[in-house]
Structures are given as C-alpha cells and as structure tokens.
C-alpha cells in the first residue's frame, strides 16, 4: 500500500472518530442549535392540521420556553410576558393558507462562563404558501435570544426582536 493511500485511510479514520464523538458527546452550543431547529420544526405548519392539532402543537412548542419568558417586539408593541400568554397568542395567530414554515438561520451561540446561560443571535424566516402553491415569504426578523438551563434542556427565557433598519419616528 502506498504512503498516500495510508495517509488517506488514516485521515478518513480520524474524521469518522471525530464525527462519532461529536454525535455521542455534543457540545452545549450544538445542543442549543439542535433545540432551536426542533423548535422551528415544531412551530411550523403544513396546512393539513386540524384546529385541535394546531392547539396541541402550540402546547408542544411551549416546552421550549421558560415559564417567565419575555418577548420584546420593540416599540410600539408591549412586551409579551409569560409562557402561557405567548402560547395563547401563537395558538390564535394563523398564517394565510394555513401553511407556515419557520426557519432559523445564521445562528450564533455564545455561552456564558457558567455554561448555564447562553445568548443566541439568529435570523428567523417565516414562509407561507402562495396562491400558485409556491413559497410566499411572510417575514424575516433578526432576533436576540437568551436561553438558560436549569435542571433539564435549554429553554428560551427572553426574545428581543431587533431592527435591522432603525425606523424614523
């Protein structure tokens, strides 16, 4: 076997070991990434859900938030305080056509020194369905999240909706 082949096989073996290690022992940042992707999938609707299913989904989404979560939408809207209020609003809100795909992109996680609090910046994209069946972008917002970890998975304790363009009042 040539040296090049030996080096190639060794590199591939190392890559597999690293990959398995990351899979079995994910870092807290990766856990948070995964948690947010779960939330995006749980909050999305494909338009076939009944009202009962949508209420159930809204309740499932609640487990990703702290009981005392605060959502600051920025002026002139008052903040949404408490998980129950947030879930109730989400259950009432309905996208046009019943389809809503939520996607979190450009996710950056910064862990605090105690590794029990994290700050996340991301862009949240909401897409619906156009009359012709294609994608219809609804909105995209830059969010700053604060997550904390008590005795279980990471939960969102605060959401700040940031303005890319500062409005003129």
């Amino acid at each position, binding site marked *: 076997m040539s040296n090049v082949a030996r080096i190639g096989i060794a590199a591939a073996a190392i890559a597999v070991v690293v990959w398995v290690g990351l899979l079995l022992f994910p870092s807290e940042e990766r856990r948070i990434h995964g948690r947010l992707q779960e939330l995006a999938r749980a909050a999305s609707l494909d338009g076939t859900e009944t009202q009962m299913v949508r209420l159930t989904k809204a309740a499932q989404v609640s487990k990703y938030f702290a009981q005392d979560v605060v959502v600051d939408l920025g002026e002139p809207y008052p903040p949404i305080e408490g998980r129950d209020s947030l879930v109730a609003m989400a259950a009432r809100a309905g996208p046009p056509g019943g389809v809503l795909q939520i996607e979190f*992109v450009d996710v950056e996680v910064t862990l605090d020194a105690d590794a029990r609090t994290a700050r996340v910046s991301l*862009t949240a994209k909401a897409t619906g369905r156009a009359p012709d069946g294609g994608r219809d972008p609804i909105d*995209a917002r*830059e969010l700053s999240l604060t997550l904390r970890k008590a005795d279980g998975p990471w939960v969102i304790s605060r959401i700040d909706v940031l303005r890319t*363009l500062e409005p*003129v*009042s």
Partner: protein
Amino acid sequence: MSAGDRTAAHAAGSTLRRVAFGRNPRRTLWRAGALVLASVVIFGYVLLPVRGEGISMVPTFQPGRLSLVNTLAYRWHEPQRGDIVALRMAGRRVLYVKRIIGLPGERVAIVDGTVMINGQGLAEPYVTHRARWRLPEISLDADEYFFVGDNRGMPLAQHELGTARRPRIVGKLLL
C-alpha cells in the same frame, strides 16, 4: 467479436475517454478541482448570489429575480448615494436589499413623497410611483446611512426604511 470490431470498440472508447477527461486525466482533475475551489470562494465570499423576496424594491428589483452582491465593492471607496446595497441581518443568509439615499452627516426628510437632503429635493429617476410619504427630518451620525426601497407607491407603514450603520452593509448589488 472480430479483431476489427475490437479495434473499433477500443478506438470509440478512447475517444469517449478523451472527450470526458481530456488527453491528460490528471491535469483535467486538477483543473476541475481548481474550478470548484474558485467557485466556492467567489460565490461564497465575494459575489454572493441573492434572490429577491418582497416588493419594496419594485420595479428595480423584482421578487424572484436573481442577482449578485459584490462584497468587495466598498473596499476602496465608501458607499454612495443611489447605490443599491445588501444589508445583513444576524448573518449573510438573509439580506435586506435597499437603496442608499442619505449619507453620513446629512439631514434627511421626506416631504409629500420627495426626499429632502439638507433641505434640497433629491432627483430620483428610478422611482416610478410616488405616494405622499412624510417623514420628519433626522440627522445622520458619522457612520450612519439612510436606506429606502424604490417602491414608493406602497403605504409607508408597510415599507421598511430607516437608518443603519456602515458595518451592516455587506456589499453592492450587481443588477
């Protein structure tokens, strides 16, 4: 298969290999690899592909239209009034596309749909329909720009416009 048939088949196979891989397959492989690497670098970091969504830049930039953002456009000079630029949100996967109408240090207002820069009306030939927007005058900071879309016929309340600082600008759109 006769000897003649085998020779013909071998020649056809050689021609096909030469067309597919060139006379020197190793060099072809290196060239293909270089092309892939160059494409990744160029379209990942220098010329960012973007697809329009939303109507705020109509008619200049239609929804669904593809374009490229030149991230090196402002390496040697600052953004200019009238430039159509991409603004980053949390990152570069989702970008705002807006036009610069106010430069740092200027006073900007909108009076009955006309943009006023330091008290003077701004000529905007790219605006085809103009609603009677009104915005109070603001003064831009040293590294602050004013951005607005070209679709001035839509209600002001539905149009995202405002100020942002220089670091938000990712690059200039190549239309």
